[in-house]
Protein backbone atom coordinates (compact mmCIF):
# COMPACT_ATOMS: atom_id res chain seq x y z
CA UNK A 1 0.00 0.00 0.00
CA UNK A 2 1.62 3.27 -1.09
CA UNK A 3 1.03 5.83 1.69
CA UNK A 4 0.29 8.62 -0.75
CA UNK A 5 -1.63 6.75 -3.43
CA UNK A 6 -5.11 5.33 -3.58
CA UNK A 7 -8.02 4.74 -5.89
CA UNK A 8 -9.81 7.30 -3.75
CA UNK A 9 -9.09 10.96 -4.17
CA UNK A 10 -8.83 11.42 -0.42
CA UNK A 11 -6.91 9.22 2.03
CA UNK A 12 -7.38 9.69 5.76
CA UNK A 13 -5.05 8.27 8.39
CA UNK A 14 -6.46 7.86 11.89
CA UNK A 15 -5.58 6.08 15.12
CA UNK A 16 -8.28 4.73 17.41
CA UNK A 17 -6.46 6.13 20.47
CA UNK A 18 -6.29 9.70 19.16
CA UNK A 19 -9.10 12.00 20.30
CA UNK A 20 -8.25 14.42 17.49
CA UNK A 21 -8.75 11.57 15.06
CA UNK A 22 -12.09 10.79 16.69
CA UNK A 23 -13.26 14.35 16.03
CA UNK A 24 -11.96 14.23 12.47
CA UNK A 25 -13.72 10.97 11.65
CA UNK A 26 -17.22 12.40 11.60
CA UNK A 27 -16.15 15.59 9.85
CA UNK A 28 -14.52 13.47 7.16
CA UNK A 29 -17.71 11.46 6.75
CA UNK A 30 -19.42 14.76 6.12
CA UNK A 31 -16.93 15.41 3.32
CA UNK A 32 -17.83 12.07 1.77
CA UNK A 33 -21.47 13.06 1.81
CA UNK A 34 -20.88 16.57 0.48
CA UNK A 35 -18.65 15.52 -2.41
CA UNK A 36 -20.09 12.08 -3.02
CA UNK A 37 -16.70 10.44 -2.62
CA UNK A 38 -15.39 7.45 -0.71
CA UNK A 39 -12.46 8.18 1.54
CA UNK A 40 -9.71 5.60 1.79
CA UNK A 41 -9.64 5.14 5.59
CA UNK A 42 -6.29 3.87 6.85
CA UNK A 43 -4.81 3.17 10.28
CA UNK A 44 -1.71 4.87 11.64
CA UNK A 45 -0.52 3.42 14.94
CA UNK A 46 0.97 6.32 16.85
CA UNK A 47 4.00 5.73 19.01
CA UNK A 48 2.92 8.30 21.56
CA UNK A 49 5.72 7.75 24.10
CA UNK A 50 8.22 8.71 21.41
CA UNK A 51 6.91 12.27 21.25
CA UNK A 52 4.61 12.85 24.22
CA UNK A 53 6.05 10.50 26.82
CA UNK A 54 3.81 8.08 28.66
CA UNK A 55 1.75 7.94 31.83
CA UNK A 56 -0.78 5.78 33.61
CA UNK A 57 -3.52 7.01 35.94
CA UNK A 58 -5.69 5.05 38.36
CA UNK A 59 -9.47 5.16 38.64
CA UNK A 60 -9.18 8.25 40.86
CA UNK A 61 -7.32 10.05 38.03
CA UNK A 62 -4.10 9.98 40.07
CA UNK A 63 -0.89 9.53 38.10
CA UNK A 64 0.65 6.26 39.21
CA UNK A 65 3.36 6.01 36.57
CA UNK A 66 4.85 8.59 34.26
CA UNK A 67 7.68 9.40 31.88
CA UNK A 68 6.84 12.89 30.70
CA UNK A 69 8.50 16.29 30.77
CA UNK A 70 6.53 19.28 32.14
CA UNK A 71 6.22 20.52 28.56
CA UNK A 72 4.76 17.19 27.44
CA UNK A 73 2.27 17.29 30.31
CA UNK A 74 1.19 20.78 29.29
CA UNK A 75 0.67 19.63 25.71
CA UNK A 76 -1.29 16.53 26.74
CA UNK A 77 -3.48 18.43 29.21
CA UNK A 78 -4.22 21.12 26.65
CA UNK A 79 -5.01 18.51 23.99
CA UNK A 80 -7.73 16.92 26.12
CA UNK A 81 -9.04 20.31 27.27
CA UNK A 82 -9.29 21.28 23.60
CA UNK A 83 -10.80 18.05 22.34
CA UNK A 84 -13.41 17.91 25.07
CA UNK A 85 -14.80 21.36 24.31
CA UNK A 86 -15.29 20.42 20.65
CA UNK A 87 -16.68 17.02 21.60
CA UNK A 88 -19.21 18.70 23.90
CA UNK A 89 -20.60 20.65 20.95
CA UNK A 90 -21.49 17.31 19.35
CA UNK A 91 -22.61 15.72 22.58
CA UNK A 92 -19.80 13.21 22.11
CA UNK A 93 -18.24 11.59 25.15
CA UNK A 94 -14.46 11.67 25.44
CA UNK A 95 -13.05 10.22 28.64
CA UNK A 96 -9.31 10.60 29.07
CA UNK A 97 -7.60 7.22 28.68
CA UNK A 98 -5.93 5.82 31.78
CA UNK A 99 -2.80 4.78 29.89
CA UNK A 100 -1.17 5.05 26.50
CA UNK A 101 -2.70 2.20 24.56
CA UNK A 102 -1.14 0.11 21.82
CA UNK A 103 -3.82 0.09 19.12
CA UNK A 104 -2.08 -2.38 16.83
CA UNK A 105 -4.73 -5.06 17.36
CA UNK A 106 -7.63 -2.66 16.82
CA UNK A 107 -5.90 -1.60 13.61
CA UNK A 108 -5.56 -5.21 12.50
CA UNK A 109 -9.34 -5.39 12.83
CA UNK A 110 -9.50 -2.20 10.78
CA UNK A 111 -7.50 -3.68 7.89
CA UNK A 112 -9.54 -6.87 8.07
CA UNK A 113 -12.80 -4.92 7.88
CA UNK A 114 -11.39 -2.70 5.13
CA UNK A 115 -10.79 -5.63 2.81
CA UNK A 116 -14.37 -6.83 3.25
CA UNK A 117 -16.60 -3.88 2.55
CA UNK A 118 -17.03 -0.22 3.19
CA UNK A 119 -20.09 -0.81 5.37
CA UNK A 120 -18.24 -3.33 7.48
CA UNK A 121 -15.34 -0.89 7.94
CA UNK A 122 -17.46 2.14 8.75
CA UNK A 123 -19.59 0.21 11.22
CA UNK A 124 -16.42 -1.10 12.85
CA UNK A 125 -14.82 2.34 13.11
CA UNK A 126 -17.96 3.98 14.47
CA UNK A 127 -18.33 1.25 17.06
CA UNK A 128 -14.74 1.04 18.29
CA UNK A 129 -14.23 4.79 18.38
CA UNK A 130 -17.36 5.42 20.38
CA UNK A 131 -16.73 2.60 22.82
CA UNK A 132 -13.00 3.25 23.21
CA UNK A 133 -13.66 6.85 24.20
CA UNK A 134 -16.27 5.68 26.70
CA UNK A 135 -13.66 3.25 28.12
CA UNK A 136 -15.77 0.36 26.94
CA UNK A 137 -13.35 -1.16 24.43
CA UNK A 138 -9.88 -2.58 24.93
CA UNK A 139 -8.01 -2.09 21.65
CA UNK A 140 -5.23 -4.43 22.77
CA UNK A 141 -7.56 -7.38 23.28
CA UNK A 142 -7.91 -9.38 20.06
CA UNK A 143 -11.07 -11.10 21.28
CA UNK A 144 -12.73 -7.70 21.79
CA UNK A 145 -11.57 -6.66 18.33
CA UNK A 146 -13.13 -9.79 16.87
CA UNK A 147 -16.38 -9.11 18.73
CA UNK A 148 -16.38 -5.57 17.39
CA UNK A 149 -15.99 -6.94 13.87
CA UNK A 150 -18.96 -9.21 14.43
CA UNK A 151 -21.00 -6.30 15.81
CA UNK A 152 -20.12 -4.39 12.67
CA UNK A 153 -21.53 -7.13 10.49
CA UNK A 154 -18.17 -8.39 9.25
CA UNK A 155 -17.28 -12.02 8.63
CA UNK A 156 -14.63 -13.06 11.15
CA UNK A 157 -13.89 -16.64 10.09
CA UNK A 158 -10.12 -16.34 9.67
CA UNK A 159 -9.51 -13.12 11.62
CA UNK A 160 -7.20 -14.73 14.18
CA UNK A 161 -5.01 -16.14 11.46
CA UNK A 162 -5.09 -12.85 9.52
CA UNK A 163 -4.11 -10.92 12.63
CA UNK A 164 -1.14 -13.20 13.22
CA UNK A 165 0.12 -13.33 9.65
CA UNK A 166 -0.97 -11.39 6.58
CA UNK A 167 -2.69 -8.61 8.49
CA UNK A 168 0.26 -8.01 10.78
CA UNK A 169 2.64 -7.94 7.80
CA UNK A 170 0.43 -5.47 5.94
CA UNK A 171 0.05 -3.22 8.95
CA UNK A 172 3.76 -3.25 9.71
CA UNK A 173 4.61 -2.52 6.10
CA UNK A 174 2.24 0.43 6.03
CA UNK A 175 3.49 1.84 9.34
CA UNK A 176 7.06 1.46 8.16
CA UNK A 177 6.38 3.37 4.94
CA UNK A 178 4.51 6.30 6.50
CA UNK A 179 7.36 8.35 8.02
CA UNK A 180 9.34 8.68 4.82
CA UNK A 181 6.14 9.73 3.06
CA UNK A 182 6.01 12.61 5.54
CA UNK A 183 3.13 11.15 7.54
CA UNK A 184 3.70 11.15 11.29
CA UNK A 185 0.44 11.91 13.09
CA UNK A 186 -3.32 11.79 12.96
CA UNK A 187 -5.58 12.87 11.53
CA UNK A 188 -3.61 13.16 8.30
CA UNK A 189 -5.39 13.78 5.04
CA UNK A 190 -3.82 13.10 1.65
CA UNK A 191 -5.69 14.83 -1.13
CA UNK A 192 -4.32 15.01 -4.66
CA UNK A 193 -0.94 14.04 -3.16
CA UNK A 194 -0.93 16.92 -0.67
CA UNK A 195 -0.36 15.88 2.94
CA UNK A 196 -2.38 17.82 5.52
CA UNK A 197 -2.06 17.07 9.22
CA UNK A 198 -4.97 18.11 11.42
CA UNK A 199 -8.64 18.80 10.93
CA UNK A 200 -7.93 22.54 10.80
CA UNK A 201 -7.15 21.89 7.12
CA UNK A 202 -10.69 20.81 6.30
CA UNK A 203 -11.47 24.21 4.73
CA UNK A 204 -8.51 23.76 2.38
CA UNK A 205 -9.50 20.17 1.61
CA UNK A 206 -12.99 21.37 0.87
CA UNK A 207 -11.50 24.02 -1.42
CA UNK A 208 -9.35 21.43 -3.23
CA UNK A 209 -12.26 19.03 -3.69
CA UNK A 210 -14.41 21.91 -4.93
CA UNK A 211 -11.98 22.65 -7.74
CA UNK A 212 -9.61 25.19 -6.15
CA UNK A 213 -11.77 28.13 -7.07
CA UNK A 214 -10.57 31.47 -5.74
CA UNK A 215 -8.10 31.82 -2.92
CA UNK A 216 -7.38 28.94 -0.55
CA UNK A 217 -9.05 29.47 2.81
CA UNK A 218 -7.04 29.69 6.01
CA UNK A 219 -7.00 26.98 8.66
CA UNK A 220 -10.13 26.66 10.82
CA UNK A 221 -11.91 24.23 13.05
CA UNK A 222 -15.22 24.74 11.38
CA UNK A 223 -18.26 24.12 13.51
CA UNK A 224 -20.03 21.81 11.12
CA UNK A 225 -23.63 20.87 11.39
CA UNK A 226 -23.07 17.12 11.23
CA UNK A 227 -25.72 14.94 9.71
CA UNK A 228 -26.72 11.85 11.62
Amino acid at each position, binding site marked *: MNPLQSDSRLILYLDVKSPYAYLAKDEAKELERMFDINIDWRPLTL*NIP*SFLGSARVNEHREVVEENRTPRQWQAVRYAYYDVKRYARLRETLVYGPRKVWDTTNAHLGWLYARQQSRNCLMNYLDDVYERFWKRDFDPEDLSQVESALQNAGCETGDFSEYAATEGRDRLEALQGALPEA*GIFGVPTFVVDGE*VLFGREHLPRINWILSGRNGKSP*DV*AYELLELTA
Partner: protein
Amino acid sequence: MILLALDFTSASSYLALGPSVAFSEEIEVDLLLQPFRVLQLPPPTKIRNESVAERHQRIRAEYRSADLERYAEVQGIRLEIAPYGIDPTLAHGALLVANEHGVGIEFARRVFTSFWEGRLDIESSTEIRKVLEGLDVEFNPSMDLLHAQLDEVRSTLEEQEIYSVPTFLVEGERFIGRQHFPMIRSMLSVERRSPPT
Protein backbone atom coordinates in the same frame (compact mmCIF):
# COMPACT_ATOMS: atom_id res chain seq x y z
CA MET B 1 -11.34 41.43 24.69
CA ILE B 2 -9.20 38.87 22.93
CA LEU B 3 -5.65 38.52 24.20
CA LEU B 4 -3.14 37.11 21.75
CA ALA B 5 0.16 35.84 23.13
CA LEU B 6 2.81 35.91 20.43
CA ASP B 7 6.54 35.84 19.77
CA PHE B 8 8.15 37.81 16.96
CA THR B 9 10.49 34.91 16.22
CA SER B 10 7.57 32.52 15.74
CA ALA B 11 6.34 32.14 12.17
CA SER B 12 3.01 30.82 13.35
CA SER B 13 2.59 33.97 15.44
CA TYR B 14 3.21 36.02 12.31
CA LEU B 15 0.68 33.96 10.37
CA ALA B 16 -1.85 34.53 13.16
CA LEU B 17 -1.56 38.31 13.27
CA GLY B 18 -3.37 39.34 10.08
CA PRO B 19 -6.29 36.93 10.52
CA SER B 20 -6.56 37.89 14.21
CA VAL B 21 -6.80 41.60 13.43
CA ALA B 22 -9.40 40.90 10.74
CA PHE B 23 -11.31 38.62 13.08
CA SER B 24 -11.34 41.12 15.96
CA GLU B 25 -12.58 43.83 13.61
CA GLU B 26 -15.25 41.54 12.21
CA ILE B 27 -16.66 40.66 15.61
CA GLU B 28 -15.93 44.12 17.04
CA VAL B 29 -13.92 42.88 19.98
CA ASP B 30 -10.63 44.52 21.02
CA LEU B 31 -7.42 42.61 20.39
CA LEU B 32 -4.51 42.94 22.83
CA LEU B 33 -1.13 41.58 21.81
CA GLN B 34 1.10 40.28 24.59
CA PRO B 35 4.67 39.07 24.13
CA PHE B 36 5.48 35.53 25.17
CA ARG B 37 8.87 34.16 24.30
CA VAL B 38 9.04 30.58 23.10
CA LEU B 39 12.44 29.20 22.26
CA GLN B 40 12.75 28.55 18.54
CA LEU B 41 14.96 25.55 17.88
CA PRO B 42 16.41 24.67 14.49
CA PRO B 43 14.70 21.70 12.89
CA PRO B 44 16.48 18.40 13.48
CA THR B 45 18.38 16.91 10.59
CA LYS B 46 18.55 13.27 9.63
CA ILE B 47 21.24 11.43 11.52
CA ARG B 48 22.60 7.91 11.37
CA ASN B 49 20.88 5.39 13.63
CA GLU B 50 17.97 7.77 14.15
CA SER B 51 15.65 6.68 16.99
CA VAL B 52 11.88 6.53 16.53
CA ALA B 53 11.55 9.72 18.58
CA GLU B 54 14.23 11.52 16.57
CA ARG B 55 12.67 10.48 13.29
CA HIS B 56 9.25 11.57 14.48
CA GLN B 57 10.59 14.99 15.53
CA ARG B 58 12.44 15.46 12.23
CA ILE B 59 9.47 14.55 10.07
CA ARG B 60 7.10 16.64 12.16
CA ALA B 61 9.48 19.61 11.83
CA GLU B 62 9.76 19.14 8.07
CA TYR B 63 5.99 19.01 7.77
CA ARG B 64 5.56 22.04 10.00
CA SER B 65 7.96 24.08 7.90
CA ALA B 66 6.14 23.14 4.70
CA ASP B 67 2.80 23.91 6.33
CA LEU B 68 3.94 27.38 7.39
CA GLU B 69 5.09 28.04 3.84
CA ARG B 70 1.77 26.81 2.45
CA TYR B 71 -0.30 29.28 4.46
CA ALA B 72 2.27 32.08 4.21
CA GLU B 73 1.77 31.85 0.47
CA VAL B 74 -1.99 31.97 0.95
CA GLN B 75 -1.61 35.13 3.04
CA GLY B 76 0.95 36.61 0.66
CA ILE B 77 3.63 36.91 3.30
CA ARG B 78 7.29 35.98 3.08
CA LEU B 79 9.20 33.85 5.56
CA GLU B 80 12.77 34.46 4.55
CA ILE B 81 14.81 34.09 7.69
CA ALA B 82 15.79 31.37 10.11
CA PRO B 83 14.80 32.80 13.50
CA TYR B 84 16.94 30.47 15.58
CA GLY B 85 19.09 32.02 18.28
CA ILE B 86 17.55 35.45 17.85
CA ASP B 87 16.56 37.17 21.08
CA PRO B 88 13.21 38.97 20.76
CA THR B 89 13.38 40.57 24.23
CA LEU B 90 13.86 44.11 22.97
CA ALA B 91 11.08 43.88 20.42
CA HIS B 92 8.81 42.28 22.98
CA GLY B 93 9.49 45.08 25.43
CA ALA B 94 8.84 47.60 22.68
CA LEU B 95 5.50 45.93 22.02
CA LEU B 96 4.47 46.70 25.60
CA VAL B 97 5.43 50.33 25.05
CA ALA B 98 3.52 50.38 21.76
CA ASN B 99 0.50 48.93 23.53
CA GLU B 100 0.63 51.75 26.08
CA HIS B 101 0.38 54.20 23.18
CA GLY B 102 -2.39 52.30 21.43
CA VAL B 103 -0.24 51.26 18.46
CA GLY B 104 0.63 47.70 19.45
CA ILE B 105 -1.02 46.07 16.46
CA GLU B 106 0.59 48.37 13.91
CA PHE B 107 3.95 47.98 15.64
CA ALA B 108 3.63 44.19 15.53
CA ARG B 109 2.63 44.27 11.91
CA ARG B 110 5.68 46.33 10.97
CA VAL B 111 8.08 44.28 13.07
CA PHE B 112 6.79 40.94 11.85
CA THR B 113 6.91 41.95 8.19
CA SER B 114 10.36 43.54 8.28
CA PHE B 115 11.86 40.89 10.51
CA TRP B 116 10.61 37.92 8.48
CA GLU B 117 11.68 39.57 5.23
CA GLY B 118 15.18 39.97 6.70
CA ARG B 119 15.05 43.76 6.79
CA LEU B 120 14.97 44.30 10.57
CA ASP B 121 17.39 43.31 13.30
CA ILE B 122 15.09 42.92 16.28
CA GLU B 123 18.05 42.73 18.64
CA SER B 124 19.09 46.26 17.68
CA SER B 125 17.69 49.00 19.92
CA THR B 126 18.40 51.54 17.17
CA GLU B 127 16.28 49.65 14.67
CA ILE B 128 13.46 48.94 17.11
CA ARG B 129 13.49 52.57 18.15
CA LYS B 130 13.08 53.56 14.50
CA VAL B 131 10.03 51.38 14.15
CA LEU B 132 8.45 53.02 17.19
CA GLU B 133 9.45 56.49 16.05
CA GLY B 134 7.61 55.75 12.83
CA LEU B 135 4.55 55.44 15.04
CA ASP B 136 5.36 58.62 16.97
CA VAL B 137 6.45 56.72 20.08
CA GLU B 138 9.71 57.36 21.91
CA PHE B 139 11.70 54.37 23.08
CA ASN B 140 14.58 54.75 25.50
CA PRO B 141 14.47 51.48 27.34
CA SER B 142 16.07 50.60 30.60
CA MET B 143 16.83 46.93 30.07
CA ASP B 144 16.22 46.17 33.75
CA LEU B 145 12.79 47.73 33.64
CA LEU B 146 12.01 46.06 30.34
CA HIS B 147 12.95 42.64 31.69
CA ALA B 148 10.85 43.23 34.81
CA GLN B 149 7.84 44.19 32.73
CA LEU B 150 8.23 41.19 30.45
CA ASP B 151 8.65 38.86 33.43
CA GLU B 152 5.42 40.21 34.89
CA VAL B 153 3.54 39.69 31.63
CA ARG B 154 4.92 36.19 31.33
CA SER B 155 3.95 35.28 34.88
CA THR B 156 0.42 36.51 34.28
CA LEU B 157 0.14 34.47 31.10
CA GLU B 158 1.63 31.38 32.70
CA GLU B 159 -0.93 31.65 35.48
CA GLN B 160 -3.48 31.23 32.69
CA GLU B 161 -1.56 28.08 31.63
CA ILE B 162 -0.29 29.65 28.43
CA TYR B 163 2.84 27.88 27.25
CA SER B 164 2.83 28.18 23.48
CA VAL B 165 2.26 30.74 20.74
CA PRO B 166 0.08 31.91 19.20
CA THR B 167 -2.38 31.46 22.06
CA PHE B 168 -5.65 33.33 22.32
CA LEU B 169 -7.19 33.99 25.70
CA VAL B 170 -10.88 34.75 25.56
CA GLU B 171 -13.02 35.01 28.68
CA GLY B 172 -10.42 32.96 30.53
CA GLU B 173 -10.43 30.19 27.92
CA ARG B 174 -7.25 29.27 26.02
CA PHE B 175 -7.07 28.55 22.31
CA ILE B 176 -3.76 27.62 20.71
CA GLY B 177 -3.72 28.56 17.04
CA ARG B 178 -5.85 30.68 14.74
CA GLN B 179 -7.96 27.70 13.70
CA HIS B 180 -10.24 28.35 16.68
CA PHE B 181 -11.89 31.53 15.36
CA PRO B 182 -15.20 29.77 14.58
CA MET B 183 -15.50 28.59 18.18
CA ILE B 184 -14.43 31.94 19.61
CA ARG B 185 -16.97 33.67 17.37
CA SER B 186 -19.66 31.28 18.50
CA MET B 187 -18.68 31.68 22.15
CA LEU B 188 -18.74 35.47 22.03
CA SER B 189 -21.95 35.68 20.05
CA VAL B 190 -23.70 33.38 22.53
CA GLU B 191 -22.54 35.64 25.34
CA ARG B 192 -23.83 38.69 23.54
CA ARG B 193 -27.19 37.06 23.00
CA SER B 194 -27.53 36.06 26.66
CA PRO B 195 -29.87 38.32 28.63
CA PRO B 196 -28.29 40.30 31.47
CA THR B 197 -28.63 38.65 34.85
